[in-house]
């Protein structure tokens, strides 16, 4: 497709306290049908969206965190997580889900989707986008 645009979904909110995180995920999945160059960024409280072992049985809300692992099937291969945001919250990559995609250019090898980036790197990634959608 000649008019492919670079879309970045920016996630800055923790899950469950507000509807932003779930809405973002739904928009990403809908947008995936349009075959654009999609990437996701998780910064500030948005890094809490990706923690593993989420269990919402006690709060009566749907646990939507397993859906992040489906992003690879929707051809979402770039998930940027901001290093400083993790550190400020006492987290490391080990506290997050392990998200992967299958690389069709490399015999469908399974590769990591999450890319740990510095705040400065993320600022430059934002600057390269055609469209930024914020949540």
């Amino acid at each position, binding site marked *: 497709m000649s008019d492919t645009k670079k879309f970045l979904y*920016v996630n*800055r909110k923790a899950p469950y306290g507000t509807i*932003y995180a779930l809405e973002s995920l739904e928009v990403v999945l809908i947008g995936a049908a349009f075959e654009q160059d999609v990437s996701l960024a998780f910064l*500030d409280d948005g890094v809490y969206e990706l923690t593993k072992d989420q269990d919402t049985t006690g709060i009566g809300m749907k646990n939507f965190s397993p859906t992040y692992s489906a992003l690879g099937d929707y051809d979402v291969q770039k998930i940027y997580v901001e290093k400083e945001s993790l550190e400020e919250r006492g987290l490391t990559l080990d506290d997050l889900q392990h998200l992967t995609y299958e690389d069709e250019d490399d015999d469908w090898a399974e590769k990591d989707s999450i890319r740990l980036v510095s705040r400065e790197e993320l*600022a430059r990634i*934002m*600057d390269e986008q055609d*469209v*930024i959608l914020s*949540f």
Partner: protein
Amino acid sequence: MPTLHTVNKSPFERTTLDSCLAHALPGSAVLLIEDGIYGAIDGTSAAGRVKEALSNLSIYVLGPDLKARGMREDQVIDGIRIVDYAGFVDLATENDRVQSWL
């Protein structure tokens, strides 16, 4: 590739403004709207950070949102430009993209 960043939260309740200022590249424009306008007021605990950012960013505040909240133009930090809705549109069209900090 300049970006227009908009901020619509008070710097005293949320970290939205700080996060915007930490990610806006030099030469970018920042427009304070809605409750974000409190970040444009001088003499606050946030004013120092905003003045520092003015050295490499263009900062604007939406006049109607200032007036609505009883804030006067003479309270706005020197160097921050006050725009109306038409000015908001101009900023959106002059830049390559708009990034909303919520």
